[in-house]
């Protein structure tokens, strides 16, 4: 790792919801950071100007409209650090949090953001005040694909640290959102930077113990918020996202409205629809929706001519060509985009749907060159003549391959097939290289079904040698006890107990 510059970069820690019951702990954890150049901005009820010689604490008034996005924007407007990280009154940071992430980013100029793992610390109010910790469960524990970032909250908010100047491109937090503010911000940041995963727990988020007697919460507003997040686009250019154009040249225009809605609903990649239709064909659509570019064509135009006309309007680096409504293959539009941008060779395009069909995702420039060179040929022929190979994605290239293996493993475990579950977890580990997570899951499946304790213990021991958690220590202890090693089991349990009881944000991670 190259040495740090003589003056370490300043880091701004933004603390919102400081008046929550854990606000004082959160502030203490920010001040306990081992990073020398720190600025702590507190939004809400906290002490005024405080300095411990290294960190400067500034209090900002709680905005009248006290939603998270407004509070964050107020603090970010005052931030002066080269990097920013986030904390709420429900979180604590470990003392090494800022140092680990900043050092990782300073050593890797290709990334503007980094994130680590966090515990969800389940608590209930203690009888004498304060919080009684009931358990800690690992959140994260593996690196996220870009599609994961686009599709949901893949990064725990207190584990993220990023360059502040990225906000100039991504824009501020969106105050029109009542929820999902963090995911929305992470998603927009991902248009401009790669996210570096730094394995290891460096933060905790306190979560109240679920009240099992209460009815499940009604999140009727969630679908609307999700749709709003997915529709948000920061200003261009987007160096890290290859926007996808979807060209629809319909044979039967009446079938397209449903297909377009499906594509919108199931494609989290920023995309734009291009619909090459005659005036008559466009009638059932009514007014052309905002996210659709209607490309007028003349009556009787052949399909290739329609596509060529639409291609002339496309500005996205990738383009999906769909001769027919994709039906059940809607999800594969996004999959094909992922494979093209992550795995495909220069001369390859990725097929959508079954082998033999001509539908796929192409690099726009390549496709345009092929058409310019041989405009008299059909699109399929001109592509072939230009040496572009349209191939199907391989199973291990698909974005959901890891999730699919994990889903199958969970299903096997739920149906009492422990060995099969463990093998699937192992395959998932080999696929993703994230063996810590999969080893623990495999050990748990084997323990649950018995008969393979030796294998389970070996996996568990590997995990605890590198990243022990309360759950993995408890599992190892149970396996040790079952094999008669009661004294060793007691040692693991003692350690798990220390994890639960130790004020980790003051002393650092127990490991």
């Amino acid at each position, binding site marked *: 790792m190259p040495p740090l510059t003589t003056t370490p970069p300043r880091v701004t820690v933004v603390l919102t919801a400081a008046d929550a019951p854990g606000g004082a702990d959160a502030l203490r954890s920010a001040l306990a950071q081992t990073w020398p150049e720190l600025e702590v901005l507190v939004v809400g009820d906290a002490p005024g100007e405080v300095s411990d010689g290294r960190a400067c604490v500034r209090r900002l008034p709680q905005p009248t409209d006290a939603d998270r996005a407004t509070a964050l924007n107020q603090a970010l407007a005052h931030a002066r650090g080269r990097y920013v990280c986030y904390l709420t009154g429900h979180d604590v940071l470990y003392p090494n949090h800022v140092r680990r992430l900043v050092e990782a980013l300073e050593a890797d100029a290709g990334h503007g953001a980094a994130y680590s793992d966090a515990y969800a610390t389940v608590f209930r109010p203690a009888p004498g005040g304060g919080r009684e910790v009931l358990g800690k469960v690992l959140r994260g524990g593996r690196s996220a694909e870009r599609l994961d970032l686009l599709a949901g909250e893949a990064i725990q908010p207190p584990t993220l640290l990023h360059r502040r100047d990225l906000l100039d491109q991504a824009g501020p937090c969106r105050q029109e959102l009542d929820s999902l503010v963090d995911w929305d911000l992470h998603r927009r940041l991902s248009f401009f930077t790669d996210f570096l995963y730094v394995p290891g727990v460096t933060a905790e988020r306190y979560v109240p113990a*679920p009240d099992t007697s209460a009815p499940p919460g009604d999140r009727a507003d969630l679908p609307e918020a999700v749709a709003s997040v997915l529709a948000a686009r920061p200003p261009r250019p987007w160096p890290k996202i290859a926007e996808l154009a979807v060209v629809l040249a319909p044979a039967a225009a009446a079938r397209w409205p449903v297909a377009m809605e499906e594509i919108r609903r199931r494609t989290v990649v920023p995309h734009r629809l291009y619909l090459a239709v005659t005036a008559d064909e466009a009638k059932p659509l009514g007014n052309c929706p905002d996210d659709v570019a209607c490309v007028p064509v003349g009556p009787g135009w052949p399909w290739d001519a329609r596509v060529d006309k639409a291609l002339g309007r496309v500005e996205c680096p990738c383009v999906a060509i769909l001769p027919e409504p994709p039906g059940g293959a809607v999800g594969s539009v996004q999959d094909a985009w992922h494979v093209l941008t992550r795995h495909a060779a220069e001369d390859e395009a990725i097929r959508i749907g079954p082998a033999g069909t001509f539908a796929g995702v192409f690099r726009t420039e390549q496709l345009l060159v092929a058409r310019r060179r041989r405009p008299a040929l059909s699109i399929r022929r001109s592509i072939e003549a230009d040496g572009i190979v349209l191939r199907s994605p391989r199973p291990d290239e698909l974005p959901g391959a890891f999730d699919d293996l994990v889903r199958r493993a969970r299903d096997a475990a739920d149906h009492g097939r422990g060995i099969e579950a463990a093998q699937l977890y192992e395959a998932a580990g080999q696929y993703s290289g994230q063996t810590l997570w999969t080893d623990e899951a495999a050990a748990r499946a084997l323990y649950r079904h018995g008969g393979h304790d030796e294998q389970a213990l070996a996996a568990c021991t590997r995990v605890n040698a590198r990243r022990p958690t309360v759950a993995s220590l*408890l599992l190892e202890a149970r396996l040790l*006890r079952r094999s008669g090693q009661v*004294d060793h089991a007691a040692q693991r349990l003692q350690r798990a107990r220390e994890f*639960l009881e130790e004020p980790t944000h003051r002393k650092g991670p127990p490991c």
Partner: protein
Amino acid sequence: MLSVRTFRDLDDVADAAGQRFDVLMELADCHAALGDLDRAHCCYRQAARLEPGRPEPHVGLGVVGVQLDRLDDAEDAFDAAARREPTCAEAYGGLAMVRQRRGDHAGAFDMHLKCLELDTDNLVALLGLFQTSCQMGTFAKIIHYLEVYLGRHPGDTSVLFCLATLYAREGHFAGARDCLLDVLALEPGKAEAEQLLDAVRRELADTQLQDTLSV
């Protein structure tokens, strides 16, 4: 995708809410197994404070009480477990143990029976019931439970032998012989089974002779 992740997270949180309790209980059991009864007692106490409605820590405290020969404390603890969970078989098994220690065979017998009503698979209670039955000389109820248990664990030779002994005492020699043949098939050469089988066969031969003579 988002909703799947969110719901999985909620499952994790519900699981994690029981971690501290699980750690304390496992640790207490380990200390108890290693003979460190004071530390076991301390951990069970903490678990009981953490989850006041759960019977398991009180069962643990009761077992520690029995091991320390503090029978009054043990009885209180097992009672507390039974109050919290009236179907807690271990609580009644513990109360039987306390009464047996005090020489209250009838009381122990009742508690063993209650335990077996709740958990017919409880071998400790079954053997305890057998022991108290022998001490009291009443066997009718124990035979039923031994038969139920063997229905689930047909290869358990210790229980098969107990049943054979009781059959023999009750004069049901054919049943005793069958049980003993099963024991010897599973554990060839088991001396006590061979001896009892010889005795049972003699009884069967005598009975056959008397039947023949009476005809």
